């Protein structure tokens, strides 16, 4: 075969390899191009201590996450996707999953009304008025849900509302695995 015939093939293969690399790197831990992978996966949950939503409630802090497998859900009454995913959280809570809430930049009355209308799936709710704790969790969209293991390490992060598919295909299997 002549060299001049090999060169175009070599060029095309080279470009193909680079495109394949792009696709491969996109696939590394990311579900879509727009989703940013969390750097906190496998790391201990950030140190925080948030006041409760109601006077009767308990504070939600890093300590609350120790010795139990739990979900941490960041929500606000002003966030429509949070409203959309709420029935999923209620279902999980009924199945005995421990869910902690971080109420993000919300008004107390609105948050309480949201829970009165749709039900309260949370074991405890911490109030993050300034959004500083949310930054420590690396949050950029609402709602976001984290799965935390017994040691208090973050194992999974979901951006956006949890669908029933997300729950049955990802969340429940992961919780089962971690509870073993």
């Amino acid at each position, binding site marked *: 075969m002549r060299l001049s015939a090999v060169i175009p093939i070599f060029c095309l293969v*080279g470009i193909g390899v680079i495109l394949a690399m792009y696709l491969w790197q996109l696939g590394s831990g990311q579900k879509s191009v727009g989703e940013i992978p*969390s750097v906190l996966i496998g790391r201990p949950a950030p140190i925080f201590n948030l006041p409760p939503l109601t006077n009767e409630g308990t504070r939600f802090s890093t300590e609350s996450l120790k010795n139990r497998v739990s979900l941490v859900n960041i929500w606000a009454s002003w966030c429509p996707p949070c409203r959309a995913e709420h029935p999923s959280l209620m279902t999980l809570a009924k199945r005995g999953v421990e869910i902690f809430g971080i109420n993000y930049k919300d008004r107390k009355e609105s948050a309480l009304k949201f829970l009165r209308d749709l039900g309260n799936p949370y074991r405890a709710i911490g109030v993050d008025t300034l959004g500083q704790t949310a930054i420590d969790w690396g949050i950029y969209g609402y709602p976001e849900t984290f799965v935390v293991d017994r040691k208090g390490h973050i194992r999974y992060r979901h951006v956006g509302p949890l669908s029933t598919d997300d729950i049955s295909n990802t969340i429940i299997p992961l919780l089962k695995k971690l509870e073993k």
Partner: protein
Amino acid sequence: MTRCIFFLIALICLTREPVALEPNEILKTPALEERARNISKNLRCLVCQNQSIDDSDAGLARDLRLLVRKRIIAGDSDEHVISHIVSRYGDFVLLRPPFNKWTLTLWLSPLILLFIGTLGLVFYFRRKVSLDISPPLSDPEKRILERIKEEKTL
């Protein structure tokens, strides 16, 4: 009319690049504010993703701008402030991605593509040149050429 247009162009040139920064966020010490601006210029707003936190009106961008200033006042160096935010949001928060194994393709592919392109061009032109060079004339051809020339001069 021309004057008016010149005046407008001058006015556009004089305006500063737009920033979303609000007056009450600005630090009192100009040197510290300068540092804050330099840091936030290179941090990505995670909500809009193609703007820096300096340019973005998003709530999160504002919170990050305030966090940058809080860390600066607390005495952190620029590197510490940046690593504080990178440890929460990852390298993606940097508008200029660092060179590591995950960004290898990103940084090297332009060079590889340039190399492939150059190679392609070199071979393309080489082949063109080689097609232009025709084999030398054979003896019968030379005789025909001579005859034509003679006929012309006659």
